[in-house]
């Protein structure tokens, strides 16, 4: 071979590299541990104040929790067993690293942000037309390690075909309307609820109506233009300048604050000013100039709220409760359970390149994250003394179902069906149908997310689920399991692992075995058990 080197040299290089990698990762781990410890210390001072803490979470519950949080899917039975048996002291940290290299990590968080953006869409068409491209785009960004600052800038400055440019989601969801877009940019990227200032000065904040409309003045030249029709109607986001500028668009070139007493009048011409920094643009700027400047100002290091809003959201997803309880209503006047903690964590987040992987690693390393869980009612008094039990988001619950039933192929088969109109957007199949019933706005405080009768009915009686439960189908998960395993208690254990990611307690096992013995047909008995497991409260929650 041409490139063969002398063996000792290769070894030397490899050894050197390995040493560098080890010391690098060791120091990164040290750094992570230090930040996590400081977060716990600050939290102790600010929030916990010596209150009794929930005990550390056990390994099985931790594995389910961290898997659901990072990749949006529970662990499989084999993973659980090997994790619980692994004696290594740093196994939790290594598990986090491993999960973060799984492409489902990016997909899970992309779906979260897609829901954040789409839940408040002004235009119904956005969900189907841009929902998938947004997921694809964000998945790619998170998986390649793009910083949130970079992603946020693209959401503000996006242009192009909404079906292919996923970064257009935020603009398209608001039909590019200046006021709606402004309100959403402030809410999603900064955690500020400015909407009320659209019509009047904010009732319990300092935001004035003028400030809202100055902010909206960054967006009047955004144009949503229908594209020539192929199979289905489609749109692109472009700039007024590019779309010809004149004609009926002329009035749109600037943003006017409506005169409330005289809504027919043109109103007051507004110049673009960023309400948080007071930075202003001179008159007459192009769409590109306006949006690019705003994107820079929003994501500037000097603006603490950009990082705080993000850190608060991710913390709230992981701990079940944010530092600020409402994730899109932050601000200097809002109640914050631990202001110095969120400040500290946000600063480190900025220093680490707005990297979601870094943030997930750090938060999951805290003692706060690794506590056992309690229901919201029990843990309300002192936040962060326990992790709060959360309902699973629609996508996560769907993944939990398909992985429990071993029915992953279900989804791809349906998605390939060309008869479905939504197939053109990649928004079809059982996952999308499921979302219509189980979806909720992830920005709404989780205690306000309620389970509906329709959800119960789908889980109890859904024809596809019933099919997936079949115990006498040798191709199905349960059928295979029953053929290969003759011990009923082992079958029961396997089903518990697949659904709840833990072994049954003795009492639970006794209930199951009793049911199996009292039912004439073994396969039918275990169908009932599996049915009960996926219909249990515990299955739908993240503990």
């Amino acid at each position, binding site marked *: 071979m041409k490139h063969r080197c002398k063996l000792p040299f290769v070894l030397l290089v490899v050894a050197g590299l390995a040493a560098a990698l080890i010391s690098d990762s060791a120091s990164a781990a040290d750094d992570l541990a230090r930040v996590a410890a400081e977060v716990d210390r600050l939290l102790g001072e600010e929030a916990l104040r010596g209150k009794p803490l929930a005990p550390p979470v056990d390994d099985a519950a931790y594995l389910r929790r961290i898997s659901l949080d990072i990749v949006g899917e529970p662990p499989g039975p084999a993973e659980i067993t090997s994790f619980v048996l692994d004696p290594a002291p740093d196994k939790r940290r290594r598990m986090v690293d491993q999960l973060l290299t799984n492409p489902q990590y990016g997909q899970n968080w992309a779906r979260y942000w897609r829901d954040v953006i789409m839940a*408040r869409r*002004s235009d*119904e068409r956005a969900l189907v037309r841009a929902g998938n491209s947004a997921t694809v785009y964000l998945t790619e960004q998170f998986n390649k390690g793009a910083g949130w600052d970079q992603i946020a800038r693209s959401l503000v400055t996006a242009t192009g075909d909404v079906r292919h440019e996923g970064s257009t989601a935020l603009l398209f969801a608001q039909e590019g309307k200046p006021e709606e877009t402004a309100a959403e940019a402030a809410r999603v990227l900064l955690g500020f*609820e400015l*909407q009320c200032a*659209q*019509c009047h000065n904010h009732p319990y904040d300092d935001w004035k109506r003028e400030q809202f409309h100055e902010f909206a003045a960054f967006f009047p030249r955004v144009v949503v233009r229908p594209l020539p029709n192929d199979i289905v109607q489609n749109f692109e986001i472009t700039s007024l300048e590019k779309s010809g500028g004149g004609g*009926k668009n002329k009035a749109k070139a600037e943003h006017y604050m409506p005169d409330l007493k005289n*809504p*027919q009048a043109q109103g007051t011409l507004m110049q673009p000013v960023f309400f948080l920094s007071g930075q202003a643009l001179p008159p007459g700027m192009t769409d590109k100039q306006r949006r690019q400047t705003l994107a820079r100002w929003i994501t500037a290091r000097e603006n603490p709220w950009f990082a705080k809003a993000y850190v608060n959201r991710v913390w709230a997803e992981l701990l079940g409760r944010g530092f600020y309880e*409402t994730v899109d*209503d932050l601000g200097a006047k809002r109640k914050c359970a631990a202001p110095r903690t969120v400040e500290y964590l946000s600063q480190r987040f900025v220093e680490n390149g707005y990297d979601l992987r870094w943030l997930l690693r750090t938060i999951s390393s805290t003692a706060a994250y690794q506590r*056992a*869980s*309690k*229901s*919201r*009612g*029990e843990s309300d008094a002192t936040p962060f003394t326990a992790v709060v*039990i959360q309902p699973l988001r629609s996508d996560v619950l769907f993944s939990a179902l398909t992985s429990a039933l071993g029915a992953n192929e279900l989804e791809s088969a349906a998605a390939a069906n060309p008869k479905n109109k939504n197939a053109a957007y990649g928004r079809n199949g059982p996952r999308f149908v499921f979302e219509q019933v189980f979806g*909720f706005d992830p920005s709404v405080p989780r*205690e*306000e*997310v*309620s*389970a*509906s*009768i*329709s959800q*119960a*009915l*789908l889980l*109890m*009686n*859904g*024809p596809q*689920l*019933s099919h997936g439960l079949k115990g006498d189908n040798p191709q199905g998960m349960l059928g295979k399991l029953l053929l290969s395993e003759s011990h009923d208690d082992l079958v029961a254990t396997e089903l518990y692992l697949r659904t709840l990611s833990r072994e049954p*307690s003795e*009492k*639970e096992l006794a*209930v*199951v075995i009793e*049911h199996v013995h009292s039912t004439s047909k073994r396969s*039918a008995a275990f169908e*009932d*058990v599996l*049915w*009960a*497991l996926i*219909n*249990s*409260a*515990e299955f*739908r*929650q993240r503990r």
Partner: protein
Amino acid sequence: MTTQVVHHTRASISRNRVVARRDFLKGISVAALAAGGLSWTDLLSLQAGELRRRGMACITLWMGGGPSQFETFSPLERHENGGGTKSIATAVPGIRFADSLPEMAKLAKECAVIRSMTSKEGNHVRAAYLLHTGYLPTPTVKYPALGAVAAHQLADKACELPSYVRIGRSGLSDSAGGFLGVEFDPFVLGKADRPPENTAPATTNDRFQSRQQLLARMEADYASSGGAEQVADHRKLYDQASRMIMSRQMRAFDLAQEPEKMRTAYGEGAFASGCLMARRLVEEGVTFVEVTLGGWDTHGDNFNQTRKLAEQVDRPMAQLIADLKQRGMLERTLVVWMGEFGRTPKVNARSGRDHYPQAFNVVLAGGGVRGGQVIGRVTPDGAKVADRPVTVPDLFRSFCHSLKINPDAEQMTPIGRPIKIVDGGKVVNELFG
């Protein structure tokens, strides 16, 4: 006759924490009620406004997106803002509707048209919330929709169907139960022309029941080790769902049981099926049904769009009112036609009309409402309320009056904050005079 009326008060049920639940039973003789021995105020004082008013129901026809008043119940034929929409005479001299509502015109004697509704909220989501709850959204309190309040106050416990049903989706939040909790969220059907999804048990009924029992036994251990709250809430939901699908009353969802003649009378289309199903549901004891028809956000091509929409509404709505009347149900069933706001008087450059909360329409029929009248007046250009403004709290107070709900009754939020069913406002007395 000593039939007991069961009064059921749930003082403070919250979503994820069942703080304290006080169920108390109070029996009074139906005979006494029937004989008129007790006046309304007597009843109020008997049970602090928490009495159930047997049989009152409400059907809301929700025009999602904000229907144009000018192309429906308030044509402006003689002003350029009318946009050329023609009007027709109705059965009531002096009252004219848009010409796309010929069937409703015949029934004008049953309807009260409020032409002077006014609000300040021009954002779809916030305005839809306002017209559903009577309150503007706040980050702190999640107000229940009128349907949830009605279900809470009036629901017939003997009815095994959900007391609040919504037919058709139009981007409205399904968690309309607000702080009253999960059980007051609407049961949502995408379409009325087939039975609600997943309501047929996947197994035999016996096995379905046995699975429920197995589930309860399997969950006992988790409940006793920290999951009590979750399991209890979950149990409640599952009990409700199973009771419903096992019920004979499920037949109300099956339009095939209606004679062909009746189906024809309601007309064609999803909205027509929704109206017919609404009547079947109310007949079966459901308290509140909302039938939605979206698409009214006519920023462009307003005149063609609203004509199509009005045609979808005209016959079904007219037949619904006529059918209720013919069955003797109209007196105790309030029918409401409304959306989140109206449309701008001025036609925009795209032949559209934009959002306009300043002056819009709501139409009421039944439930004790005196028909054949118009309430309020707008300026000739349609832009301003000229006489008798009706605010959203006024409207909600009037709903309560019709449904015999005490609007000043306080309901508890999860943190124990008492919230009135309606805050402020005055009953629009002309509606009931």
